[in-house]
């Protein structure tokens, strides 16, 4: 932006100051929590902000060995990966059908999913709980996965259908004339060129599903199959004010997303932004 070219010194200073302040506002709470996870409660009480005397892994050890956080971690991995694979498979097929159908069929299918995006899950929690309980699927990972797929699918259909609609129809028609089946066209032509928007949805959905609290809270009560956010909530009750212990849990639960964010930052921003703009 050209307007910033001849920036007066005072303005430049204010601008930098504002950015640094905001950066500190993000960094300070996060660093305090990371440091606190290496302290004991007594040390945190006397020295809440400073560097820990020694970096003790005991909170992490307790999380893994006494609290079996590894189990919750695996539950989250199972729920998130199965849900994502399910959604991407179903929604890419649906988006392809929306792209290939013409006229009212396409419009009805598209409208059905677009309408779904306008109903926030919080509104639907009671009837969903009721249906899952009628099917005897409460307190099972299967029930949670089925619900998660259904809840988060509309956004992915929306993103993928939007992308596919921008593709050239001639290309698909040419494939049809050459005798390719719909399945072959989808698999060999559409799927490979849709990869950027498929990965954007995948990342957006991973963040949503990995962090989801509401549906695990509604549908799961057995300790064996709790997901990480639900387990964190349980630790809050159990350790009350033992913050270092809870923080070790927070860091373990956030680690995979943070790690992926550092590696794939650009895709995260694109994915979450595409999801938020459209969802």
């Amino acid at each position, binding site marked *: 932006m050209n307007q910033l070219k001849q920036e007066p010194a005072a303005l430049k200073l204010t601008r930098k100051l504002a950015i640094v302040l905001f950066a500190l506002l993000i960094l300070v709470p996060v660093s305090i929590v990371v440091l606190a996870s290496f302290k004991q409660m007594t040390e945190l009480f006397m020295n809440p902000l400073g560097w820990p005397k020694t970096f003790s892994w005991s909170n992490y050890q307790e999380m893994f060995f006494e609290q079996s956080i590894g189990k919750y971690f695996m539950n989250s991995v199972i729920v998130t990966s199965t849900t994502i694979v399910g959604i991407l498979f179903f929604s890419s097929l649906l988006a392809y059908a929306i792209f290939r159908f*013409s006229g009212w069929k396409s419009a009805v299918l598209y409208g059905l999913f677009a309408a779904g995006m306008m109903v926030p899950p919080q509104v639907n929690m009671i009837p969903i709980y*009721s249906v899952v309980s009628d099917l005897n699927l409460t307190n099972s990972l299967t029930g949670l996965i*089925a619900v998660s797929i259904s809840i988060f699918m509309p956004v992915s259909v929306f993103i993928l259908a939007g992308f596919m609609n921008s593709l050239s129809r001639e290309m698909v028609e040419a494939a049809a004339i050459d005798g390719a089946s719909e399945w072959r066209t989808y698999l060999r032509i559409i799927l490979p060129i849709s990869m950027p928007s498929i990965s954007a949805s995948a990342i957006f959905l991973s963040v949503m599903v990995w962090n989801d609290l509401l549906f695990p809270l509604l549908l799961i009560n057995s300790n064996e199959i709790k997901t990480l956010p639900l387990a964190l909530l349980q630790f809050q009750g159990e350790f009350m004010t033992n913050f270092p212990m809870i923080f070790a849990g927070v860091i373990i639960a956030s680690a995979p997303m943070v790690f992926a964010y550092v590696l794939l930052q650009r895709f995260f921003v694109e994915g979450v932004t595409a999801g938020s703009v459209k969802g």
Partner: protein
Amino acid sequence: MRQSKSLYLFIIPGLFFYLLFFVYPTINGLILSFTEWNGFSAKHWVGLDNYKKMLLEDDIFFKALTNNLKFMLYVVVFQTGLSLVFSILLVKNSKSNIFFRALFFFPTILSSISVAFIWGFMYNPNLGVINTALGSMGLEVLAQNWLGNPHLAIYSIAFVQVWAHTGQMVVIFVAGLQSIPEELYEAAHLDGANRWQAFKNVTWPLVAPAATIVVAYTTIQSFKAFDLIFALTGGGPVYSTEILSTYIYHTAFQSSEFGYAAAQSMGFMVIIALITLAQFKLLRGNRAL
């Protein structure tokens, strides 16, 4: 265009899940809202009783709605304002700007429950960082029970919501700002426009579509907040942070009034629909610009 019958096979699996676990419950919720049901025994038809109770007798429902609106207003104003300012400051793709945009975006990937624990500690009245820091600066008078004070709690949580999501909105605004052609600024500059005039006449009208998206998304996102409030205060103290989503949860799973909770959900859905409609109008209005 020739369409083969096999396309129907493409829609069956996704549609099956969607109809069973989303569309059917949505319709079923309406039926449930006319019944009394404790979650176990048989459902008992009560007609419009739940709606009467909600609209005429339930003060907490309206308290929750008011809290929703307070929370939303605060979040929309601050999140939109701050993200607009920071997107202008960080619009150029320099190395440091890209770094800061990534840093500000970072809280978006944390779960609301993790964010709740981070800020629950910051706000803790006894060993919390904020009060400790205020104390060490000799400003004890400013120390507060941030989440325990019924007049303050909802704003304390709204601040956390803004903390967590402003960076996401910065990214949306930056995309909008970067689509403004450079020549427009050069023309404004040649016409002798100062910085403020350039912002008012070039940036603002052209950033309006991005602003609409940010406002629309922020409105819905803040209106349907759940995790953050559930984990930070659970709706207390004395219902001062109870919002519709937490109230529906409490009605169903603490008071076991599932039918009534379904009626509340319908009320919630109508309000969301009204907000969405208002935004569509706003979107249209903007396109005319």
